[in-house]
């Protein structure tokens, strides 16, 4: 029965339909795997009864012969999604004990499709981090280790618990969120797939806000097909999110095809940056060959403002975060700490105690760049450069259909190895430009580096062209034949 946890969502779906196994068996298998993987620290809270209840409904539905798309599939949910009556803390001490009286649209959509929930997944505090080390619950430990080493590695971040859970076979699929790479970098670090759709595809309603103009939810799973299945269930117009796109949900799974004949793959010359290990550039070249083999034609493109994407992001994201996080004031939910000095003292003491170091750093930067006298020099300037970055992509997509780059500039690193905030920010150098332009982007595993750690390839599509991204991802997946799994030590 443990083999059930190694299956993809598509395999679980067909096994359930054919009666090879029951939804209850699936839920029990994953509940046991979750309970047996505490050392990974992937979950902040587990909800085995939720997975079992959804399984019971699925088994009844099967008996009636009408199974919704995710019937009997238990998922891990990033702790950024509000789940009715279940602790939702965004990995922060300031939301300790918060039980939302409502359900996020994305998780409600997944539930409507029949999915159950295994628990809430650990993450960097308020999704601010690239290594999971900023979580108030302590870091998630990657199931992966370097060959011949016991050093604890990061699964990446901020969706680190999500990535670790899929890689360790303790959840068949999970939700993640991506503000500047938080789905794609952890997917790359753990040898799984993850896609961030076009901004506005997934409703942000009920997703704890970090940087609202960038935040987008998306799925992470073992395969491209599984990502397509989950994405279809997660997306859709939601009148409760003012930036939700009022468009029908494409049938991405049915549209999957790895035949890329006639497609042009853009290779941005500005992504050949100094200091990136040669193994990563070699995998990138291999990726180009794979896409050629699938029928695509590579074309060199230029995204001239690439080097300004990270500094632009580190003005806009903290600025939006400082506004969004103003709501944590000790009044309506979460932590309250009495300060010496009335209401203001309570606010300041609560936020001092409730926020971790990285969140404070970003709120401080955001407050500064929005403050009187600096707003135009920093924030308006960054919004202008953001417009140029978006324009770069618009021009590039006149010459190509999809862009291929590496996902991250390194493989997973050790917990505690990167202490300089700026060095940490550089992890998202390849991921951030697509976020700033609101474009769909995906990471698929490409191979292992010399120390046996996964490396990812990154596909960026034009707005609303998730299908092209998924199809190019599928072409890579079929050719990479990535089957490596971490050896179980937990």
């Amino acid at each position, binding site marked *: 029965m443990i083999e059930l946890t190694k299956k993809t969502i598509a395999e679980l779906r067909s096994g359930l339909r054919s009666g090879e196994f029951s939804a209850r068996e699936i839920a029990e298998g994953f509940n046991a795997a979750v309970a047996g993987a505490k050392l990974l620290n992937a979950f902040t809270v587990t909800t085995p009864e939720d997975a079992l209840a959804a399984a019971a409904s699925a088994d009844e539905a099967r008996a009636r012969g009408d199974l919704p798309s995710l019937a009997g599939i238990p998922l891990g949910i990033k702790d950024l999604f509000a789940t009715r009556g279940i602790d939702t803390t965004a990995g922060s001490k300031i939301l300790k004990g*918060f*039980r*939302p*009286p409502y359900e996020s649209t994305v998780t409600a959509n997944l539930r409507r499709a029949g999915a159950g929930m295994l628990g809430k997944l650990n993450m960097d505090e308020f999704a601010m981090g690239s290594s999971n080390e900023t979580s108030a619950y302590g870091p998630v430990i990657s199931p992966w280790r370097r060959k011949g080493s016991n050093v604890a590695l990061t699964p990446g971040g901020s969706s680190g618990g999500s990535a670790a859970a899929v890689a360790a076979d303790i959840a068949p699929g999970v939700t993640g969120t991506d503000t500047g790479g938080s789905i794609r970098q952890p997917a790359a670090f753990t040898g799984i797939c993850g896609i961030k759709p076009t*901004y*506005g595809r997934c409703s942000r309603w009920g997703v704890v806000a970090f940087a609202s*103009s*960038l935040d987008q939810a998306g799925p992470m799973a073992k395969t491209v097909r599984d990502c397509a299945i989950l994405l279809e269930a997660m997306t859709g117009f939601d*009148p409760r999110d*003012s*930036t939700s796109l*009022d468009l029908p949900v494409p049938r991405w799974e049915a549209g999957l095809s790895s035949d890329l004949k006639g497609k042009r793959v853009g290779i941005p010359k500005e992504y050949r940056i100094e200091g990136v290990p040669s193994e990563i550039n070699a995998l990138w070249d291999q990726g180009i060959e794979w896409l050629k083999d699938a029928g695509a034609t590579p074309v060199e493109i230029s995204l001239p*403002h690439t*080097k*300004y994407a990270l*500094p*632009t992001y*580190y*003005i806009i994201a903290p600025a939006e975060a*400082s506004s969004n996080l103003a709501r944590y*004031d000790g*009044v*309506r*939910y*979460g932590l*309250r700490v*009495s*300060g010496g000095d*009335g*209401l203001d*003292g*309570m*606010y*300041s*003491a609560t*936020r*001092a105690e409730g926020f971790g170091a990285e969140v*404070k*750093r970003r*709120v*401080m*930067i955001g*407050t*500064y760049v929005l*403050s009187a006298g*600096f707003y135009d*020099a920093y924030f*308006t*300037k*960054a*919004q*202008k*450069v953001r*417009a*140029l970055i*978006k324009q770069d992509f618009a021009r590039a997509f006149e010459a190509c259909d999809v862009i291929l780059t590496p996902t991250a500039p390194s493989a997973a690193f050790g917990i505690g190895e990167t202490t300089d*905030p*700026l060095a940490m920010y550089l992890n998202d150098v390849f991921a951030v430009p697509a976020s700033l*332009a*609101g474009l769909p982007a995906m990471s698929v595993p490409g191979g292992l580096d010399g120390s046996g750690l996964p490396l990812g390839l990154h596909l960026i599509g034009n707005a609303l062209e998730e299908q092209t991204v998924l199809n190019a991802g599928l072409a890579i997946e079929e050719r990479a034949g990535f089957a490596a799994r971490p050896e179980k030590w937990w």
Partner: protein
Amino acid sequence: MSVSSEQVRHIAKLARIAMSEEEIERLVPELNNILGWVEQLGEVDTDGVEPLTAVIDQKLRLRDDVVDDGNIREEVLENAPDAQHGFFAVPKVIE
């Protein structure tokens, strides 16, 4: 531009985060490092560029001005650290 400890103290006050002198002193070089790095945006010619406010072009929708939720006071108050008489309770603000 670089920030002084005086300015960092002021930003902390604006952000309503209590900070010790040690924290302030530690943040000064950290923030200056980050701000020095983002200042490379000064190299970019943005004359005549409109600041981007919506990443995907779309019109903000209007809806009818009617109450479409509500009557869930108890549920909303349930998460409050201190709720009294059906209200959020805060430390005294008027002497």
